[in-house]
């Protein structure tokens, strides 16, 4: 009833190609932006920013990067943690070694470093496919793990092996309170989200999906597999690198190589599977899920009066994740995003059943 497209006839291709063709969607998006930028900072507690919103935003960004590679281009990658690490360490080195380096440039520089590495590790994808590629990306993961641990130059010869960023400031403005950090991350996410959305709905997005769906036919049409795959790796790693830099700088503050280990890679993969492969919105759903579930598992037994130890909670978390992955793959392989869009389809017809 409310979500009808009645009267919204597109009289030009331009209108049809708009990012949000349905008027209600446009209003919803504007409202969402208003809530995120204005209402949330006013209403939400510091703890919620630190524990929920900031990790949610940064992980969504990383998920967008990974989804471009895995969901849109079909190249499975288990080395995402490594690319985040490269982004974080590169940004750190830029920030620490160059005086007066603006914060945003350091972060973007981290993205560029990750992108360079992504292209290098993307080259095997030209020969190797599917499951074999997954194992090859593990090589990236473990090599970078070792590299950031052993090569002293990376950590600026830090004796403990861990590095940290004391303050985040740019052009004299310091991002010290959680609200400010949240807004910084939000800006990154909104900008990159839009860039990503533009890419995936454009020509390169179709090339990526063509490679995913049937690469032999894609070649016959004139799509260059090399270009498509390497751009997917490049764009994906750039975004993941930026997310890694943000994760280290804004969320963790101080970190060591273990923060970007293989568990992170698996976590991100789960995020995009549950959220929905091949969907930008899905990245947000998946990230929200992954961030909220541990909190739920910690609080619900507390509210119900059943005490469970943190160890048990963590095991349960593992099991529930695993079970949900299998569940989603069986019931809705396209994840929460598909569930959401099915719900919206039903909403368009509501109150009629069909």
């Amino acid at each position, binding site marked *: 009833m409310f979500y009808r497209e009645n009267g919204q006839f597109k009289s030009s291709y331009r209108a049809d190609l708009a990012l949000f063709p349905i008027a209600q969607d446009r209003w919803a998006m504007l409202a969402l932006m208003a809530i995120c930028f204005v209402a949330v900072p006013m209403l939400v507690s510091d703890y919620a920013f630190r524990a929920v919103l900031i990790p949610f935003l940064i992980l969504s960004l990383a998920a967008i990067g990974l989804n471009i590679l895995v969901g849109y281009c079909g190249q499975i990658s288990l080395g995402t943690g490594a690319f985040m690490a490269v982004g974080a360490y590169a940004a750190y080195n830029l920030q620490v070694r160059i005086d007066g380096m603006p914060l945003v440039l350091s972060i973007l520089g981290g993205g560029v470093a990750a992108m360079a590495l992504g292209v290098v590790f993307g080259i095997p994808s030209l020969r190797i496919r599917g499951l074999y590629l997954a194992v090859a990306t593990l090589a990236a993961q473990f090599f970078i793990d*070792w590299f950031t641990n052993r090569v002293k130059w990376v950590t600026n010869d830090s004796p403990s092996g861990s590095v940290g960023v004391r303050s985040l400031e740019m052009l004299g403005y310091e991002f010290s309170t959680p609200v400010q950090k949240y807004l910084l991350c939000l800006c990154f996410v909104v900008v990159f989200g839009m860039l990503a959305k533009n890419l995936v709905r454009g020509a390169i997005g179709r090339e990526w999906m063509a490679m995913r769906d049937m690469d032999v036919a894609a070649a016959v049409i004139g799509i260059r597999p090399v270009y498509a795959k390497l751009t997917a790796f490049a764009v994906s790693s750039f975004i993941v690198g930026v997310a890694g830099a943000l994760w280290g700088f804004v969320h963790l503050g101080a970190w060591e190589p273990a923060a970007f280990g293989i568990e992170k890679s698996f976590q991100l993969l*789960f995020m995009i599977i549950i959220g929905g492969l091949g969907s930008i919105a899905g990245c947000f759903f998946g990230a929200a899920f992954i961030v909220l579930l541990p909190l739920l598992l910690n609080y619900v037994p507390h509210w119900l009066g059943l005490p469970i130890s943190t160890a048990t909670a963590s*095991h349960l978390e593992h099991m529930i994740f695993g079970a949900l992955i*299998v569940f989603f793959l069986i019931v809705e392989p396209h994840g929460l995003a598909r569930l959401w869009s099915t719900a919206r389809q039903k909403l368009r017809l509501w109150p009629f059943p069909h």
Partner: protein
Amino acid sequence: MGFFLETLFGGLMVGMLYALVALGFVLIFKASGVFNFAQGAMVLFAALAMARFSEWFPQWFHFESKLLANVLGFVAAALCMVAVAWAVERFALRRLVNQEGITLLMATLGIANVLDGGGQLIFGSATYKIDIGMPKDPMLVLENVFEGGLLLNKEDLYAAVAAAALVALLTLFFQKTRTGRALRAVADDHQAAQSIGIPLGRIWVIVWSVGGLVALVAGIIWGSKLGVQYSISLVALKAFPVVILGGLTSVPGAILGGLIIGVGEKLSEIYLGPYVGGGIENWFAYVLALAVLLIRPQGLFGDKIIDRV
């Protein structure tokens, strides 16, 4: 020269252990077409079951005999693995018939998580011992050929023999028996196999049980050597490059791949390690697999992939 040979043997032994894990992997792939990311978790689960049951049975039933505890523990753990196989087939595989490889792989990732969490929930998350009476003392061989002799680990030798026996058995099974043939059919095409009357569900339970039992043997040997702890499931991640090297469908390939990786790791760690600060073992296996894949995208013994359009 003696030192080199010792390192070589050490590498071969480690390689055998990797091969044991990879074996379960290859089995499951060969017979159900599923790339089982949960193999490491299965090894851990099996090892945990064995360790705890052989600890609990004496307590519950009040007896002292170590041998009986171990035997009962083994049986209980084996039953657990069969139960896991049944559950995996019933709740996951049955509903994912004929899905793409990537979907199945991700499903096994999920199963790995369930086994990790579940295993630690049921059996506990500390480090446990498995003691099946394997001699832990080293032995000296070839004392007359090399000065001082070569130091070999008896435990590793026993592991190698066990692995070799398993391989021989499994190769025979696949090549010579009717069930083995049926399993190979299933691996090729689920729907086709189903349509000629092969009972897919039952086959899968059998396959995953066998995979689970192989995981149990691997778990016992690893656990006896290293102690049963969470890190085993990560060490088992190394089985993937082993399988890549050996080709996903080849049982002898898994062994050969394991040996190559084991030797390669040890040698590079000892001889190249000092130049780069050590720790090469962590990534050598993967980088080697990557290098091999670049030259032969199907691994050393795998089947060539031909695209039909």
